[in-house]
């Protein structure tokens, strides 16, 4: 029994010795640290790339937004400029002088269409407030012409308010004979100077 036990043991030893005596095969070398470093680097690269892509996308979005904003502002500015130009052109066309007979402040028939044009302009452009200046020719006294200029301006104002322009958008002032429009002492010069002027304010 003992012998029977010893033999397998010896066999095992012999086999074991035989095995031990063979050159061992090289174990596979796995550099876990390198693998980990590589993985981390790739992850970092991916993260960095994602961030870069995100940054680029955000920058592009911001650029597009800025461009859009600039375009919008430019369009708004252009629209404002055009509206202002239209306003000024309409004002220049509408705000023309009316004239008066000597020592009179009544609105002449030939000037009523001009006043209607001024009223239409003021209705179209709500931002338009107008100062009406009353003027006289050089003849007559300073005091009387100041009063006459006042009445001429008031007559124009009353006509415009009757056409539907709010009185609060109109103001009057008289310069009497102190600011002639044209020089000269002919009847034509006197008529040109007996006037109401309409100025944006």
């Amino acid at each position, binding site marked *: 029994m003992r012998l029977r036990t010893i033999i397998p043991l010896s066999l095992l030893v012999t086999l074991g010795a035989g095995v031990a005596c063979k050159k061992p095969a090289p174990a596979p070398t796995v550099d876990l640290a390198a693998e980990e470093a590589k993985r981390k680097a790739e992850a970092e690269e991916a993260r960095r790339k994602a961030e870069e892509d995100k940054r680029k996308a955000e920058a592009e979005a911001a650029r597009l937004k800025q461009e859009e904003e600039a375009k919008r502002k430019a369009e708004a500015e252009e629209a404002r400029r055009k509206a202002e130009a239209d306003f000024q052109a309409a004002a220049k066309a509408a705000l023309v002088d009316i004239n008066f007979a000597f020592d009179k402040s009544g609105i002449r028939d030939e000037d009523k269409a001009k006043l209607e044009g001024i009223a239409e302009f003021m209705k179209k452009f709500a931002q338009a407030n107008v100062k009406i200046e009353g003027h006289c020719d050089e003849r007559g006294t300073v005091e*009387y012409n100041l009063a006459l200029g006042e009445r001429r301006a008031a007559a124009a104002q009353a006509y415009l308010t009757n056409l539907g322009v709010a009185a609060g958008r109109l103001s009057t002032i008289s310069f009497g004979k102190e600011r002639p429009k044209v020089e000269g002492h002919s009847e034509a010069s006197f008529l040109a100077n007996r006037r109401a002027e309409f100025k944006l304010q």
Partner: protein
Amino acid sequence: MKLAPMGGQYTGHVYAPAWSPDGKRLAYTQVTSRSGDTDIMVLDLGSGKVRRLTFTNCLNTGASWNPSGTQIAFESDRDGGPQIFLMEADGSNMRRLTQKGNYNTSPCWSPSGSMIAFVARFEGKFDLFVYKLGEGKDYQITTGISSSENPAWSPDERRLVFSSGSLAGKRLFTTDLSGNQTLPFGNLTGCEMPEWTRSR
């Protein structure tokens, strides 16, 4: 300098101020209606109260006090063109002074109170006239000089100083009351509304 605001219920433009001879009141013109009518007002500097002297829907302006401060001459177009009117300093006893022509303005009382110089549009030109209150008649002083305006009396009442000519080229002249001795006064141009004061 103390500035006193114009009082009263009227808010229209104010111009053509004229001190009373005693310096206690100020007459002036004020716009009193939306149609641009103007009226003569008198501000009492002591009380700060404003009294409206004219109430017609027309132009009333150019107030000139008489030397005693009891009357005011002014121009008004209540009858059509401007004419010279008189009233007491409280606005009572108003009457028209000038009857000829349709454009008489710029009254200026003489130092003694016996005459009023004024400007009349006569034959298409503006000339100086003098109204003698004792006689109730006016006399033409200047002729042949276009647009003679803004008369003011010499202290001795023998001469008038006035402006004449076109607006930019207005020059000063003096004349005696016959109109025969009209003389240029200096070489300045662009002058108007002269005053003649006694040397001190």
